[in-house]
């Protein structure tokens, strides 16, 4: 009720009406006749963006857990490499990392005959393994830092209680430590996942046709500049909104103390 009422304040109604008029004006006067022709490609592009986002966040998170753990409680020979990895990933631009992996590894692999003869070679000649690798490592680097804080932030009493019950180390990690760390990191993870979504258009620079590349192709084919870009921005806004909504639902599953 109150949520609806805040939208019905007089100045907001005027702004919404103005916005609707703007949308209508855009729909009427700008050129949208290219849409039917590019719809199949656009759907494929959105699908590819979502697919890359899902795969790299899941793999990146799986990599971030050991990275965070190593930095939080690991011995120095594990924590130092983990910290160096996170510093390097966070200290250099993602575009540079993508190009290093794609052009660097891509030029290195053909020099080894055993890689060229292996059954993986048909995949290694395509661009997407490099894109997935680069985005996964990047997400893991940022998330490793987040998980370090999350692991260190779980109250000691919880872990001591688990030990007092005689829980084996792995069970303690799986049942007590990891769930609580993930719970406390969820707001940050949500933000980082939206940042990851915003990083996906970079893979268009190594010839992967996701939604950003589709809009660039429309621009090159038809010389229409604004319309594809505006639509592209709307697509990203919608995906980011859905992600934010999903993470809020995830956070609400566990009631926070005192709220």
């Amino acid at each position, binding site marked *: 009720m109150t949520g609806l009422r805040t939208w019905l304040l007089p100045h907001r109604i005027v702004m919404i009406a103005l916005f609707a008029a703007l949308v209508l004006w855009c729909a009427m006067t700008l050129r949208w006749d290219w849409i039917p022709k590019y719809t199949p490609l656009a759907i494929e592009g959105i699908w590819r963006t979502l697919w890359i986002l899902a795969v790299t966040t899941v793999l990146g998170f799986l990599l971030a857990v050991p990275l965070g753990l190593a930095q939080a409680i690991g011995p120095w020979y594990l924590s130092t490499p983990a910290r160096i990895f996170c510093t390097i990933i*966070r*200290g*250099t631009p993602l575009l*540079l990392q993508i*190009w290093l992996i794609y*052009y*660097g590894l891509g030029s290195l692999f053909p020099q080894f005959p055993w890689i060229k003869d292996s059954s993986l070679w048909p995949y290694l000649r395509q661009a997407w393994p490099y894109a997935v690798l680069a985005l996964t490592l990047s997400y893991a680097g940022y998330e490793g830092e987040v998980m370090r804080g999350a692991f260190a932030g779980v109250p000691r009493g919880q872990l001591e209680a688990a030990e007092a019950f005689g829980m084996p180390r792995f069970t303690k990690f799986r049942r007590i430590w990891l769930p609580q760390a993930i719970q406390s990191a969820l707001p940050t993870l949500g933000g980082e996942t939206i940042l990851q979504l915003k990083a996906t258009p*970079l893979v268009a620079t190594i010839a992967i046709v996701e939604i950003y590349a589709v809009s660039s192709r429309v621009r090159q084919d038809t010389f229409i500049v604004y319309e594809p870009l505006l639509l592209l921005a709307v697509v990203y806004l919608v995906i980011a909104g859905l992600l934010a909504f999903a993470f809020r639902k995830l956070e609400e599953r566990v009631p926070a103390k005192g709220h």
Partner: protein
Amino acid sequence: MIELLSLSPPGWGGNLLRGLMNSLQIALGAYGLGLLIGLAGAYGKLYGGPILRDLLAVYTTVVRAVPELVLILILYYVGTDLINKASEAMGYGTVEISGVAAGIAVLGVVQGAYSTEILRGAIKAIPIGQIEAARAFGMPPLLLLRRVTIPAMMAFAIPGLANLWLIATKDTALLAVVGFSELTLETRQAASSTRAYFTFFLAAGALYLMVTLLSGRVFARLEVWARRGQPSLRKAGG
């Protein structure tokens, strides 16, 4: 490998350093512009009327949800288009817009959205009595901003602003996509004409990392300076 990176023409080291200078120039300009936009935006969000506040909310939400690359393209095309139309209307004909200026303007608008949120949070963290005391003495708004608000919020804002500076340096790499010859694009050109991909990309990575680590040091010093006179967090926490 050393020859490839040497500074004089057969080597490409000079190009990389020139690219680094361009990147730093844009990052500094965009960061400064972003801080100005952010300060104005934070004031608007805190003290502005309902319409201004809603407009600023739209600005920060949209800029933070749409990829920087897409924003850069939109702002770049819209900006050059508008300037050209304006100069044609005034009878000057089309103007050439320098890459540096366009990069600073575009990244500055993006940075402004993030710094609006950081500065708003920092200003809200100032104990309200300090600002009220200054008002009670009849301090004019600009003097209050300079003497009270900015010094008092610095300690709260610096961690976020340090992060934002790192984002600014890394976001300059995105201008490579629109063909501006900053460090990443120079590196790619050097790498693809010599085929020494690893050498150049690793060298550029080292340069970026150097900037990051050095600025981390500088911001740590700044934070100590901004927190001078305040009890340390650990002692205060008990």
